[in-house]
């Protein structure tokens, strides 16, 4: 007979200290992160909120918090920017390589898809969280549990808008048997790490965290309005890309190009204080800078990702090549400069 796991009848929960003593934890979060324009919209708080009250319609907010908030402090515990320790640079890595998947098509070498699907085949994870998009290029989250689901072609490729990855993560963690794989921008990766640091469930269940190289991200409303002004027709849009300082929107009947600098006017405030380009806290970071066209640059940082890369090599699922870290220096430096934008709280 298997031993029955019996839990505790009495337990203790440590709660963080409130900077503003008489206010609810969410009010503290609002005062310290959201109102000071530090919020990255990673939605880690929305993921953990026990009453699912935190939304991100027009900036992160908790409508009706006075009635609903249980004042548990979970949002403050997991927020990567409540006590903000900006990360920057290349981070530590085991291997720095370029890869091109033979099985999937994506932005460059489709290595993010390849990593997650291979991890699924290895049995390391049983579901991966993918960001897909609808015909209006708005983001939808997909729980991919079988590689065949990737026939939905919109799952691969970069989206330059925020995705609600973390609110989907809680559900994924609840239903998974083996583990979950997540992809996200550096802020999302930091959020996942914070969740794992605070709560053992996420430590056990989130097995693979793939980070993306990220200079900035845009709110869907802002970027769609901006692109429309530039003459981009969403019905004909095939792919968006940023290369060599230019934003390129490829459509069925031509291209729209403009300098990325022009997008600074719609740059979200949370990105303006972000210094992490390479997602230094991830298990593996993937991006296009640093490798030949058609290849993805992969910085393998942790043991789980290393195992997946070895599996891919063994099965011959991808071509590998050289990646050059020096090409990243410009963008790493560019983001490091944003450190000056962070105003230290009084």
């Amino acid at each position, binding site marked *: 007979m298997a031993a029955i796991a019996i839990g*505790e009848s009495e337990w*203790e929960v*440590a709660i963080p200290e409130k900077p503003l003593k008489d206010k609810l934890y969410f009010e503290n979060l609002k005062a310290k992160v959201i109102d000071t324009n530090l919020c990255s919209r990673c939605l880690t708080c929305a993921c953990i909120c026990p009453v*699912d009250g935190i939304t991100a319609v027009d900036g992160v907010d908790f409508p009706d918090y006075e009635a609903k908030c249980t004042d*548990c402090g*979970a949002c403050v515990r997991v927020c990567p920017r409540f006590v903000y320790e900006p990360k920057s640079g290349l981070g530590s890595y085991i291997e720095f390589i370029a890869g091109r998947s033979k099985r999937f098509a994506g932005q460059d070498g489709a290595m993010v898809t390849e990593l997650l699907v291979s991890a699924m085949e290895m049995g390391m994870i049983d579901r991966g969280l993918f960001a897909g998009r609808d015909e209006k290029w708005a983001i939808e989250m997909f729980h991919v549990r079988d590689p065949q689901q990737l026939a939905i072609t919109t799952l691969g490729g970069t989206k330059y808008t925020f995705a609600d990855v973390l609110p989907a993560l809680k559900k994924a963690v609840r239903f998974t048997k083996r583990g979950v794989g997540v992809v996200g921008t550096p802020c999302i990766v930091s959020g996942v790490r914070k969740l794992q640091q605070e709560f053992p469930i996420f430590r056990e269940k989130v097995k693979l965290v793939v980070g993306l190289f990220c200079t900035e991200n845009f709110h869907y409303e802002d970027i769609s309005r901006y692109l429309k002004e530039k003459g981009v027709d969403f019905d004909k849009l095939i792919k968006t890309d940023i290369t060599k300082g230019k934003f390129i929107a490829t459509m069925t009947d031509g291209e729209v190009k403009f300098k990325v600098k022009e997008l600074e006017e719609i740059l979200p405030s949370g990105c303006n204080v972000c210094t992490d380009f390479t997602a230094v806290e991830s298990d593996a970071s993937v991006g296009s800078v640093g490798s030949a066209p058609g290849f993805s640059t992969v910085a393998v940082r942790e043991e789980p990702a290393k195992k997946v890369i070895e599996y891919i090599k063994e099965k011959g699922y991808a071509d590998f090549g050289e990646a050059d870290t020096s090409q990243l220096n410009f963008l790493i430096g560019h983001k490091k400069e944003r450190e000056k934008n962070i105003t230290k709280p009084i």
Partner: protein
Amino acid sequence: MKKVTVPEQSLGEKVVKHAAAIRVAMKESVYPLTATVFYPRERKKMPDNFRGYLMFDPDKCISCWECAFVCPANAIQMKEAPNKRYYPTVDYGKCIFCHFCVDSCSGGALKTTKIHDVAYKDMGEMLTLTEEMIEEPEIIREDKKLVEYEIDEQDLHLKRTREVDTLFVEVTPPVEIPMVSQCIEPGSCLGCRICEEMCESGAISSIIERQVIKMAIDRDKCTGCGLCVKECSMQILRLVRK
């Protein structure tokens, strides 16, 4: 291939068998042996735990939704009552009378009856609202006799008695395995105290001392209803045997 042939019989055997056949025919013509219950003048006696029309007691309901979750035919929908609680409604157009809802009801709010003869004018009427399940439905009874099936070694007999069966019986609930709620992963507790808010028996308590919330489940007060297990957003509460 096997061929079926008429068995060889002697004249004596044939006479005996024919006589037996005539005897049965004579008996049936005078006192026919049928298994027909003359409903509605007669009613068959149903066992006490017969899975029939459902009755509901809102005082015992803890709004745990278990009946709606367990229903394999999706016949049970929870509707909000004026007192802000959710009570079940049953769509008899879908119900397969498995009575998983009765078995799953931890408070014993859903009860079975021996009513099996309900007629509806249309499909919409088959959706039985909560308030219609509380009061005993009005039934026009024409039955005078109660029929019981008796099966002996040879045959089925109908035993008729001059009595009228009560259709609403109190069934003694099965002996339940006592369960108690426990936290299986205290490290992942948010401290939101939703469990404490949900608990109707007051078994869960919390004390905030400086930067620590002390949570406790009183094993004696916990009824094992499972409301806290359902509501816990981190899914770290489980029902275990007491």
